[in-house]
């Protein structure tokens, strides 16, 4: 990797102060994407601000009917949290299948969401559950947060402090892993909350997206039968040596149906 200045602040305020005014400074949460990128010399930040020392960013708490998860909370902690398992078991299940044990003990929810890798799992949960992303400067609704390939609504100097998820009546996530990397090639999160039914898809396109036709059908009848004839268009979906756009479009249907069945179990 190239040289950079390394900082390990103890508070959000200190972290923001270190990031401010430095165009090439990068915050780092778990580093599960950033460190390999640095090692391959694909990024050349002037400063890396490691949020690992900011205690206030990690932790899971229940606020009424919602679960609020700190940005620096590790996947492993989400997967094993009694609160998450009770209120949104599908989210704990999703977290328990991210990467491998090493990744789950380093990678964080805030880092994953802020990075918005098209094949990441969390964006599907955030959108399907219509979670709220809180940052040091304000709040973002899930639908407005994910903008495109590796692109979010975060401004420079803005970091994810927590994400607030509503309790799910029914929810499930089904992932079709890329055979090589085991990232989501297609991941579908279906959720029925007090606000309605949502279906969010990760991995298949450049950015997480919703399937409105499925949402409408499932709102009337939350069963896999209700969506069996709904086809997702292949236009604009990712295509690579592991899966054509047509194959991904097909898998969205398969994974959505399986997710609904799983949610109904």
């Amino acid at each position, binding site marked *: *990797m190239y040289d950079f200045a390394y900082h390990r602040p103890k508070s959000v305020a200190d972290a923001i102060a270190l990031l401010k005014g430095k165009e090439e400074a990068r915050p780092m949460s778990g580093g599960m994407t950033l460190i390999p990128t640095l090692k391959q*010399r694909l990024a050349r930040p002037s400063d890396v601000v490691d949020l690992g020392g900011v205690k206030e960013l990690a932790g899971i708490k229940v606020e009424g009917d919602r679960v609020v998860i700190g940005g620096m909370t590790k996947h492993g902690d989400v997967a094993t949290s009694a609160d998450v398992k009770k209120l949104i078991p599908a989210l704990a299940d999703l977290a328990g299948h991210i990467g491998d044990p090493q990744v789950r003990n380093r990678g964080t929810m805030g880092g994953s969401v802020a990075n918005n890798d098209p094949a990441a799992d969390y964006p599907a949960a955030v959108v399907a559950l219509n979670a709220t992303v809180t940052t040091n400067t304000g709040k973002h609704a899930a639908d407005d947060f994910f903008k495109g390939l590796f692109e979010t609504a975060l401004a420079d100097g803005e970091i994810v402090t927590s994400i607030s998820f509503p309790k799910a009546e029914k929810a499930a996530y089904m992932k*079709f892993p*890329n*055979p*090589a*990397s085991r990232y989501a090639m297609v991941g579908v999160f279906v959720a029925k909350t007090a606000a309605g039914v949502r279906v969010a898809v990760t991995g298949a396109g450049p950015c997480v997206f919703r399937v409105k036709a499925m949402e409408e059908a499932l709102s009337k009848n939350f069963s896999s039968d209700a969506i069996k004839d709904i086809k997702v268009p292949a236009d604009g979906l990712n295509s*690579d040596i592991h899966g054509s756009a047509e*194959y991904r479009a097909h*898998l969205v249907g398969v994974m959505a149906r399986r997710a609904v069945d799983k949610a109904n179990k």
Partner: protein
Amino acid sequence: MTSATGIGARVLRTEDKRFLTGTGRYVDDLPLARATYAYFLRSPHAHAKIKSIDISAAEKLPGVVNIFTGKDLVDAKVGGLICGWVVKDKHGEPHKAPPHPVMAVDTVRYVGDTVAMVVANSHDEARDAAEAIKVEYEVLPAIVDLARALDKGAPQVHAEAPGNLIYDWEIGVKADVEAAFAKAAHVTKMDIVNNRLIPNAMEPRAAAAEYDKGTGNYTLWSTSQNPHVLRLILSAFVLGIPEHKLRVIAPDVGGGFGSKIFCYADETMVCWAASRVGRPIKWTAERSESFQTDCHGRDHVTHAELALDKEGKFLALKVETIANMGAYLSTFSTAVPTYLYATLLAGQYTTPLIYANVKAAVTHTAPVDAYRGAGRPEATFVVETIVSKAAAELKMDPAELRRKNFIPSTAFPYQTPVALQYDSGNYPPIIDEAMKIADYPGFETRRAEAKARGKLRGIGFSSYIEACGLAPSQVIGQLGGGVGQWESAQIKFNPTGNVQVITGSHSHGQGHETTFAQLVHDRLGVPMDQIEVVHGDTSTTTFGMGTYGSRSLAVGGSAIMKATDKIIAKGKKIAAHLMEADAADVVFENGTFKVAGTDKAVPLAQAVFAAYVPHNYPLAEIEPGMDENAFYDPANFVYPSGTQICEVEIDPDTGIVEVVAHTAVDDFGNIINPMIVEGQVHGGIVQGVGQALFEGAVYDKETGQLLSGSFMDYTMPRADNFPSFKLGYKVTPCPHNPLGVKGCGEAGAIAAPAAVMNAVHNALAPIGVKHVEMPATPLNVWQSIQGAQHAAAE
């Protein structure tokens, strides 16, 4: 001798203590004082002219010690890398041999081709400088698609190989085969691709070198499977350093699978530059470099036809193959798709007539050479898939069709129509045992049960033959091989009775330190913990051919047995003297010399001590010391055989193929350590299933970029892809080596791809799928199902 640690015992691997506790010593672990670090600048283009290389900015960067380019090697008159096996084409002409410069001079021919070497005080400084080298390329059209490589108008890789053709080779008499086809009751035809694989040894290739100015001696540490052969190539052909001035050490090596047999640019440059830099140089490949520059394996496009009579007896087999050589001819590349492939096309069968035509083509891809099985997996895949296809077409049981055509056990030694003479074998009991273990009669019940769950279940056979332990040297020489095929062994006792077993084989994960110690323990009665197996250093071993082609036990182990014979013979003379007996009356049992019919006894350790402290010793008749050398040149290959049965379940909605059961019954002759053999079979099956379902090197057809250039895109098989394997053995000892052993290292990888793909085709046949190419990835399978559904709809 039968003991807890002798031949046949499941002895835990003595080398595992250091491997499992992180105390193994690999090339990268070497602490070399004042070391410098090398970094290679590699071509980003599949095919380009190098118009200029400007190192002026790079040279000035901090820490840079030296920068070398191809031109420096031309100026220093360094030779090119060699291909050590001359294959003669069908007109008797030697293959085309385009030059293989150690570093590119004016043209780069694959993504990863070596362009410059930077030597600096640290790895990062070397890499910084490499980025500052300005290379001006004129990008040229590239050919990476093997099926089109020989087409008119395809971009040319080398002027010396017009039409990209290295050789057009054949075996068998085409007219005889055609005549048999004309009389056939049934002909099965097949077009298949044997997918290109990237070896991915756990330890990437690495090299370190040191030059001693005072003596002029070079020491090269290299991740080599055969350090003596590497030294021979570097000395005699490439660098011209006299053999006695070059010491090559291959210390602990973390896997090779063939990819570490060859002489590469990297270790050549590290060795050459050590004297110019005047400080030691270290280099370890990054994983992405391994993907790009380790020799790849397989990569054939084949058309095959099998002629059968009305009873299902095979009349003739006809095979046409195009084999990819990559951009340059690697060390043994030319032999793999000819003498290690077409000679195996008889399989386990009495097919009386076989014709094979192999065209070797160069392309703008990484060089292709031997990879676990080397030619035999490709041959087995052809034979075993066409046999199963024929059975399906004739609505015959695939086991029955195989049985009908097996070479009978009474026919050995059996001369095949493709040069090899099988020494031994007994195939029917093997398939019977495999079917019993796999519960073949219960398959239809399992298939119905799977169908009720929405899964398509299939079963596939693969009855393989393989030829390993290449031999004898004379024949290999006649076929164009450039080296001998013997192995050496030395048994060197110390005065206190412990022993060093010095072998020319090289262990890079196979467990030789245990297996070879078991041989010596069994034969000489020396306790296991008194035996040290030494390998991998040209200064400690007389000479060695190294480890490849499942040869180490059959050839290297046999050499050890010869050396123990000499130890016993000498010991008898010493013991006879000590017991005041006639040497002819002395017998050796359980580690002790005895005079038959008396209670006189001399333990081997006592004879050894007498040999080193010869105070009471027949000095007039024999020399002191107990140190014996042996060379063993086998009379023939060894011919392991076996049957694998794979069962898969396919999810038709996603295309995912799951291996739900996998049985392997092998005949490896006598088995020294069953635990180690099981490990070899397990690993081999995993690599074979990897080829069938997961792995595939993919180059972009336009740009020639390696799309599967990391573990993010190259699918390695993983533990959770597999059930527990069910193994069995049948033993027909090899009749021509002293241990009666055959090889076990490659069998799993040789047999598995056909077993898996036959199971996949069996599973998909009910829904009309005719053919799925390897690797049968979810995408591939799903698309095949879609294709079949579209075809049915039309």
